[in-house]
């Protein structure tokens, strides 16, 4: 083992390696070392040494979502290393004429956005905690916000990637052009893979213009069904909002927020049309930072549970009713933010009532039976040790295991943290 540490030190320099502390713990497990390689080659080199030495490697970006995923399974590894991408933090190229940007994985989202804004462009994405979250972490967790109703999610924006594999291979896929079908689409495979296939070192994105104007309007609705009906009515007419979300809570009536971007006349005309469609709902003043409502779900107490749920857009109303019933029975309070495309985030505050796990499982079963899912993003460790945070991968799990076995045969990267214990 000592040999491996000294090899690593020789590769990245002593100043870029340190013993891990309690602050570096991942779900309560304190790794041995934290290493900060200075470039893609070094990342690949670190992986090769770690693989040879039988270490487990936990990739880390801005540390905002290190608790997403199952508990680490490092018992079969000889030690655990955190590989931080903090020194891979450059915006390598902003080809504004081509509306693409090449960005290193450790670059924070905010930094990218500020650079792109200099030419009136943006990555049309609104991830959680943009000041700290890095591009690599956002991709690995597939974290997207309300803009996706118009611009799609990460998989629709990423066009190229460089991955460092456990055997030390550095592989590129995709490219710098928006349209490209040469070879398999590894950028998509890496998106949402929680760093279990390779470490993302560099990415290329397609960009969009910063909108000329932005307008938001909010409505208060009588109940979940009414909120759902409103959202579906918007989808079924030909206005094109860049954000449609439902905010709901145990203590309040659901509200629906709509955002429009474009030219001033375009926004105005769409608002007018929206007001006609929503004539049954009461217009209210949107709260401050309404489009950050999602990140606010994480604020506060320790015993907090935050889940991501997916369902068909037309089932949002039914789901709201289920949540209300469930939380009444358990005496929980809850809050949620759901995007109209059928992706939402639910926060539960319930203390440690004993039947949380089975209640979550019931909720998950209900969602999965209709093609949806329930993923726990944050929960107390006591709960995490009793439930798979991801839920079912269905009959594709063997295929997913095959993919993992091809890319990371020894199980070096984030062992156990992904779906089905991958």
């Amino acid at each position, binding site marked *: 083992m000592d040999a491996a540490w000294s090899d690593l030190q020789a590769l990245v320099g002593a100043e870029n390696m340190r013993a891990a502390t309690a602050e570096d713990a991942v779900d309560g497990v304190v790794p041995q070392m934290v290493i900060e390689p200075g470039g893609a080659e070094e990342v690949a080199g670190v992986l090769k040494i770690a693989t040879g030495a039988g270490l487990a490697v936990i990739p880390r970006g801005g540390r905002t979502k290190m608790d997403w995923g*199952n508990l680490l*399974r490092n018992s079969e590894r000889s030690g655990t290393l955190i590989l931080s991408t903090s020194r891979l933090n450059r915006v390598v190229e902003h080809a504004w*004429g*081509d*509306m693409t940007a090449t960005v290193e994985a450790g670059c924070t989202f905010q930094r990218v956005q500020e650079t792109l804004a200099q030419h009136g462009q943006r990555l049309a994405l609104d991830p959680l905690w943009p000041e700290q979250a890095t591009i690599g972490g956002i991709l690995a967790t597939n974290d997207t916000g309300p803009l996706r109703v118009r611009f799609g*999610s990460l998989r*629709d924006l990423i066009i190229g990637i460089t991955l460092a594999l456990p055997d030390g*291979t550095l*592989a590129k*896929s995709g490219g*710098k*052009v*928006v*349209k*490209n*079908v*040469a*070879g*398999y689409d*590894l950028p*998509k*495979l890496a*998106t*949402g893979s929680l760093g279990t296939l390779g470490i993302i070192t560099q990415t290329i994105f397609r960009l969009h*213009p*910063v909108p000329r104007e932005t307008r938001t309007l909010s409505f208060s609705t009588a109940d979940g069904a009414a909120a759902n009906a409103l959202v579906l009515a918007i989808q*079924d007419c*030909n*206005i*094109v909002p860049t954000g449609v979300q439902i905010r709901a809570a145990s203590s309040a009536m659901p509200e629906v927020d709509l955002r429009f971007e*474009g030219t001033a*006349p*375009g926004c*105005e*005309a*769409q608002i007018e049309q929206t007001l006609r469609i929503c004539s049954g709902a009461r217009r209210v003043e949107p709260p401050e930072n309404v489009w950050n409502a999602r990140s606010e779900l994480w604020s506060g107490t320790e015993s907090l549970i935050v889940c991501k749920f*997916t*369902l*068909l857009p037309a089932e949002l109303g039914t789901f709201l009713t289920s949540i209300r019933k469930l939380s009444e029975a358990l005496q929980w309070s809850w809050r949620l933010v759901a995007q109209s495309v*059928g*992706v939402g985030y639910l926060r539960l505050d319930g203390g440690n009532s004993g039947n949380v796990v089975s209640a979550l499982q019931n909720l998950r079963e209900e969602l999965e039976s209709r*093609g949806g*899912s329930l993923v726990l993003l944050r929960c107390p460790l006591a709960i995490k040790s009793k*439930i*798979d945070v*991801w839920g079912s991968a*269905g*009959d594709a*799990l063997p*295929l997913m*295991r095959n*993919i*993992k*076995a*091809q890319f990371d*045969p*020894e*199980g070096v990267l984030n062992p156990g943290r992904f779906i*089905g*214990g991958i």
Partner: protein
Amino acid sequence: MPLDSRILDKFRAVVGRGLITEDSQLHTYECDGLTNFRVLPQAVLLPTSTEEVQAIVRICQREKIPFVARGSGTGLSGGALPVEKGIVISLARMNRILEVDLPNARMVVEPGVINADVTQRVAPHGYFYAPDPSSQSVCSIGGNVAENSGGAHCLKYGFTTTHVLALEVVLPDGSIVHLGSRTLDRPGYDLPGIFVGSEGTLGIATKIVLRIVKKPAVIQTLLAAFNSTEEAGAAVSGIIGAGMLPAAIEMMDNLAIQAAEASVHAGYPNCGGLLLVELDGPAAEVEHLIDEVGKICTQCGAWEIRVAQSEAERAVVWKGRKAAFAAMGHISPNYIVQDGVIPRTALPKVLSEMERMSAAQGLRVANVFHAGDGNLHPLVLYDGRIPGQEERAMELSIDILRLCVKCGGSITGEHGVGEEKKSMMPEMFAEPDLETMQLVRCAFDPEHLANPGKVFPRTRLCAERTGPYHPHPLEAAGVAQFF
């Protein structure tokens, strides 16, 4: 050597009369839209259900017979080209639309459904299926999925991959798996993301869940005539630079215009560079922006601008563009279509370089582009009766692709690598890149039975890498069996 009768009997037991072994009929399947590659298959099977596809693939797996899926055979890279000693599985008879779910804007279709039929089915409700390859009236959704096909409107709406949510697939080992889900963000690896665009090498899609899109309130198409493609290119940059995202921006050069006129009489002005810009969206937005587009075009030298407003006027404007490939037959006995991509800003450089190359080879090159996303379709014109011309044309078309790669682009934007361009892959990717991509192949098809020999110049041997099986801690503890 033909397949022995024992195997043919097994196939017949599955598909009955849907088995073709007559030479004369097999010839129909010996190539796709790229007719200069031909291989006669051993047999063609026409299953009508997922179960039949599965039964066929199981036989192939047991007997180690390679198979090639085929949709409508319009591919332009030899993707559906049969392989030696292999069979073709045609999905043409699996052509039912299984489900239309308007509230959720989803549809479930079989792979043999024709692209245009999807839109036709939901058009009365104000929806459409966005990916619109020029071949949409004949090509199949299964083929679109395999090629990740694009079309003029993908600039704004995204390619096939954006619109495929889930798939039922028969894997090369004969198992049926479900990739993705009707809902977004299914936990786990993005398997639809990797399957779409895999050119038939990972398995056979037997059901596809598509996303459909609400028709925009207003569509306006502007046609602008310039003296040169350089001027037209500058207008494209101007439009994008002004922060607009049109639904489509298409460009044609003079030769392409001549061909389109000769074949469908679209009424295009006779000019050096023609631009079609389509804007769609809310009426107020479109009306405001179309004026801006017009102004930018004028500033860049456009001497004629027309705006098509009605559906009929738009149809005429598009007719010439959509017929552009086929129209080449009117001005040249033979032609090669290429499918390079360049960063949009490299357009002037690439065009002038292409002009030089075409003069050097003494061959004409007509150009049709998806200008908004930098996808070029250079059409290299030649006369196959003149000895040596075909070879020179091939050489020129390959050199054009090299030029695209040199400028930071790609060898294919939508037609796929297939058989035709696999030898070009190393010009775009290094060996480790190609080896890494093939890890995916090894995970899906370790025995290389699905469309073998395509896409990659060399086949990676698949290591047996099943990895040690780790029971999930919860599984081990007997707490749960979720998976």
